[in-house]
């Protein structure tokens, strides 16, 4: 492994040695940090005034600049912080750590204008979404639960999979095509509470970025997007406790230095108390139910030397739903990350990471003769190495590797109790090895043209675990033969090249043109029998029967800054191969030994155009976006092989997000969202079979749900800490209303035969021998709309001391 990397590095050094001039050069390196908390600032810009060259800090706040001997002025900027200017006389290699002060109050528009970095124009990457966590906290959100995923869903190109859902649809891709990383560990299911809340606790998130396209070669494994989320490191200056009490949950965070300014920790927990209210109910039908979730984030970092830092972080979360103490459903994610940052030389930054993550779900029934427990899980153990080589300000090379072992326990049913009539049943365990190696080179070809090109090579192997594999007939319905794979034996090797490219051309100082292309390969696939996030996600590996999913995406964008506004228009085209769906008239997937027989793979197309105008700073901030998009699928064996619209193919989407700070104490925020209805299948006729009314349906997804729209409001009232005053702590009240005008947005429309109580000749309701009211089907068919959240007010109290 090490040898491969060294060889690769030498090759790259040779390949790019043309960039090196004979003039002696020195390197200035360092970290950019928040002055108050000591947390590193990701993506802050370090600009050299004299040479008009700039770099941005990496995800560990590290920067490196190589310059010829001379006198320079460094300007370090970060949104929401006071710009730091530093002059330096470069005669030898230097280390300069920079601390940025947070802006005390919102700046007036003139200062904002002068302070602009034009980062969005100058950086090579495109199709990315990030929202400052402080802004996220102001966005009015369902039940006041701060959620980065909900903020991302307000950006163009990202849709929610249903009202209130945290599942993301990115540029017409499937839910399972999003790579969701928390401190580099895969989060298999980002949902709590049937998908209405995400697993990301807003108090402990430092930064996140969603890549909708132009995905760098350092990421892979999912075909549509990457959501890279990083936890906070904790304040290394001062011990602190903060928290909040909301309608849905309470949060508590403890953080502080382990060694002042060198190492710190943070622990944050969150718990819902919906279940406690249920328990208080005198009604037996209610107090025996529980529903809720909790999660815990913890992180610590240690500065071992000026060149070495160690990070340990973990997440643990769980959902539980129980009905009448009889039916239980639960799921949870666990992740653990151990990272070692090392600065080899002033120019070579490295990061080696050990990762473990796991997702499990289960449900059970507890009634005398049919008690059982069902559980399933997926997990991975990974080792990842990432290197950044800052050749000179014009050339940066990144390379690395990722090796992971996947394990699957697709399902196990255990009868419980002595007299359960059910039999023990278990699907075979499975395992797989996935590996990837990548390299990329970012180069300024001229003062206007910058490109970052790269390639990722990924490979996948199934590993035997004494499991059975099957060979199916051409129509995929019959088993031709069965094989037992010995433990540790390899089979089903697939591999491929994934080219990546980003190009930026600066038209002038306030506008640029960007182009990107990426190919993504995906080796794990998720099948979910229902659309809600009940946690019953079945992940299956690629195998001799299931091909890897491949997506090619090309995107072009124009970025322009006009005064205090940042505007962009991007257009994309995505071609997906081997996308997965359940075949027509499929069998149940739970405990199905030949689940591969139930899925089919085919093609998908997605294309669209996204307009965005953003005002990132000042007293009034926010954005407006419009997306026009289309996405379809063509899969043999699904919809009889005919092309059909993707379920979440929404044609139009408008988002308006605005926030205004009246003064240091009071801010008001509002959203308005409009989205065309999703594609659905409706009945077009009815008939009778065995006396039952049977619907005859249209082609798949031929109809549209009604359009979705709603407005939300929130008011934040802060009580700031004031020196010398009686107030010792900071606190805030957040009042919010979700769906202000109470629109009954259709969550689903179902069709059914009308059911009515059976009445005798005198008009009395007929009861059976057991006293239960008898019903009969009237033969009349009706359409039923289900809607979830219309006018949901909430209040949250946050504190910090």
């Amino acid at each position, binding site marked *: 492994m090490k040898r491969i990397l060294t060889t690769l590095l030498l090759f790259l050094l040779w390949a790019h040695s043309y960039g090196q001039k004979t003039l002696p050069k020195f390197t200035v390196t360092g970290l950019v940090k928040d002055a108050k908390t000591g947390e590193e600032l990701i993506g802050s810009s370090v600009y050299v005034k004299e040479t008009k060259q700039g770099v941005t800090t990496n995800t560990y706040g590290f920067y490196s600049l190589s310059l010829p001997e001379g006198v320079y002025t460094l300007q370090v900027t970060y949104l929401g912080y006071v710009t730091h200017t530093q002059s330096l006389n470069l005669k030898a290699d230097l280390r300069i750590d920079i601390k940025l002060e947070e802006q005390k109050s919102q700046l007036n528009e003139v200062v904002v204008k002068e302070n602009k970095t034009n980062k969005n124009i100058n950086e090579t990457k495109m199709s990315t979404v990030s929202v400052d966590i402080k802004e996220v906290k102001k966005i009015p959100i369902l039940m006041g639960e701060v959620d980065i995923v909900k903020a991302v869903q307000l950006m163009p190109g990202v849709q929610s999979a249903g009202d209130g859902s945290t599942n993301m649809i990115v540029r017409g891709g499937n839910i399972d095509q999003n790579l969701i990383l928390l401190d580099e560990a895969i989060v298999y299911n980002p949902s709590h509470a049937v998908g209405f809340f995400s697993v990301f606790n807003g108090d402990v998130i430092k930064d996140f970025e969603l890549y909708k396209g132009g995905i760098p070669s350092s990421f892979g494994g999912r075909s549509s997007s990457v959501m890279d989320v990083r936890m906070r490191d904790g304040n290394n200056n001062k011990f602190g406790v903060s928290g909040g009490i909301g309608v849905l949950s309470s949060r508590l965070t403890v953080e502080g230095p382990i060694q002042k300014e060198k190492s710190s920790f943070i622990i944050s927990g969150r718990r819902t108390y919906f279940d406690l209210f249920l328990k208080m109910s005198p009604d037996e039908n209610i107090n025996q139910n529980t529903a809720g979730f909790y999660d815990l984030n913890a992180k610590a970092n240690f500065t071992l030397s000026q060149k070495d830092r160690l990070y340990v972080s973990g997440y643990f979360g769980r959902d539980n739903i129980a009905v009448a103490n009889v039916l239980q459903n639960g799921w949870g994610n666990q992740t653990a990350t151990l990272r070692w940052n090392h600065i080899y030389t002033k120019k070579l930054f490295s990061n080696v990471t050990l990762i473990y993550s796991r997702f499990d779900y289960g449900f059970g029934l507890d009634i005398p003769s049919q008690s059982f427990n069902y559980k399933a899980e997926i997990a991975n153990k990974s080792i990842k190495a990432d290197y950044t080589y800052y050749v000179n300000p014009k050339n940066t090379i990144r390379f690395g590797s990722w090796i992971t072992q996947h394990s699957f326990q697709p399902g196990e049913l255990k009868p419980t109790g002595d007299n359960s009539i059910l*039999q023990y049943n278990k699907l075979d365990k499975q395992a797989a090895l996935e590996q990837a190696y990548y390299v990329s080179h970012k180069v300024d070809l001229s003062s206007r043209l910058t490109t970052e090109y790269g390639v990722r090579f990924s490979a996948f192997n199934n590993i035997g675990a004494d499991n059975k594999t099957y060979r199916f007939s051409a129509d995929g319905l019959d088993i031709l033969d069965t094989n037992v794979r010995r433990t540790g034996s390899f089979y089903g090797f697939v591999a491929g090249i994934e080219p990546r490219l980003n190009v930026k051309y600066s038209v002038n100082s306030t506008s640029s043109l960007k182009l990107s292309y990426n190919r993504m390969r995906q080796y794990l696939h998720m099948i979910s029998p229902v659309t809600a996030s009940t946690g019953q996600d079945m992940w299956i590996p690629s195998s001799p029967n299931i091909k890897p999913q491949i997506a090619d995406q090309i995107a072009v964008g124009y970025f322009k800054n006009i005064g205090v506004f940042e505007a962009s228009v991007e257009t994309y085209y995505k071609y997906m191969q081997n996308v997965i769906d359940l075949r*027509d008239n499929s069998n149940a997937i739970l405990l199905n030994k030949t689940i591969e027989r139930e899925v089919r793979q085919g093609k998908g197309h997605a294309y669209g155009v996204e307009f965005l105008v953003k005002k990132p700073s000042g007293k009034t901030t926010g954005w407006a976006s419009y997306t026009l998009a289309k996405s379809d699928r063509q899969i043999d064996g699904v919809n009889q092989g005919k092309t059909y619209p993707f379920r979440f193919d929404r044609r139009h989407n408008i988002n308006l997000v605005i926030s205004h700070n009246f003064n240091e104490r009071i801010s008001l925020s509002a959203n308005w969202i409009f989205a065309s209805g999703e594609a659905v299948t409706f009945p*077009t006729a009815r008939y009778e079979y065995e006396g039952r009314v049977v619907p005859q349906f249209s082609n798949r997804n031929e109809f549209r749900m009604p359009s979705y729209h709603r407005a939300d409001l929130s008011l934040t009232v802060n009580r700031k800490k004031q020196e010398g005053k009686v107030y010792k702590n900071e606190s805030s009240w957040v009042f919010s209303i979700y769906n202000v005008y109470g629109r009954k947005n259709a969550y689903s429309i179902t069709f059914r035969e009308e059911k009515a109580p059976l009445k005798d000749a005198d008009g009395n309701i007929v009861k059976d021998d057991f006293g239960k009211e008898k019903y009969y089907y009237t033969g009349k068919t009706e359409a039923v709309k*289900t809607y979830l959240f219309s006018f949901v007010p909430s209040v949250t109290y946050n504190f910090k001391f």
Partner: protein
Amino acid sequence: MIQFSCTEIIEVDLNEGEKRIVIEAKIIDTLERSDGTYAYVKISETNSYFNANRPQVVSNAEVSIYDNKGEKTSLLFSNGLYIPATPLAKPTNGSSFTLEVKYNGQRYVASNKLTTFSGLDSLSYSYKPKDALFEEGYYSKLFAKEDGSKENYYRFYFRRVNNQIDSLYDIIAITDDNLVNGGYLDFEIGIPTQQGDRVYGTMASISKEEYNYLYNLNKQVNNPGGPFANQPENLPGNISNGALGFFGVSQVSTRYVDIR
């Protein structure tokens, strides 16, 4: 989350589907009787979805069944059904049948095969107190030896006679033999009965195609809707030329027990 969900009946504009013919056809062979091979065919038309009227019955079709020797039996219309004019011969395992319906200048054809089985062993009952899912009462259970040499699919029927009230259990109960292959199969009927009732239990051996059809019928007729909805899909019928419905061939075995 249930607290936040509300429903209301709405008007939806659905495109009027083209009228199609629906054929419900069955050959049912009773294991315990040598003369007991029964058949019926019911032909009707589709209606637009919100039309609450009973479907139009087709009474003027020409209906015949062919056995695997090519022997033709005509079926005649009476009381809403087409019934064989002469009794069908007792079939054996693997006997195949072809249904032919001629109507309005169109011809609709379907074939299916009989899979025999060894029949029911017994029917028993036991008393159960009330629990979270079931009422108190006497619950019956069917027992049968499963044939390990074949891939089998079964359907269960349940009938209860109490003070002259004769009621048929309204649920389509089907199973494959994946879990019990070659073992002993028992099936508990989730309907409480009382002392004095007579309970009839019937087990039928059906084809894989019919199992799939009924499995999907259950999925669509009992579709829970909302986020837990099954994909709305049309049933995998086995009749040619665009006709809806199914032609099934099955063998049945019945036992009864008096609850005391």
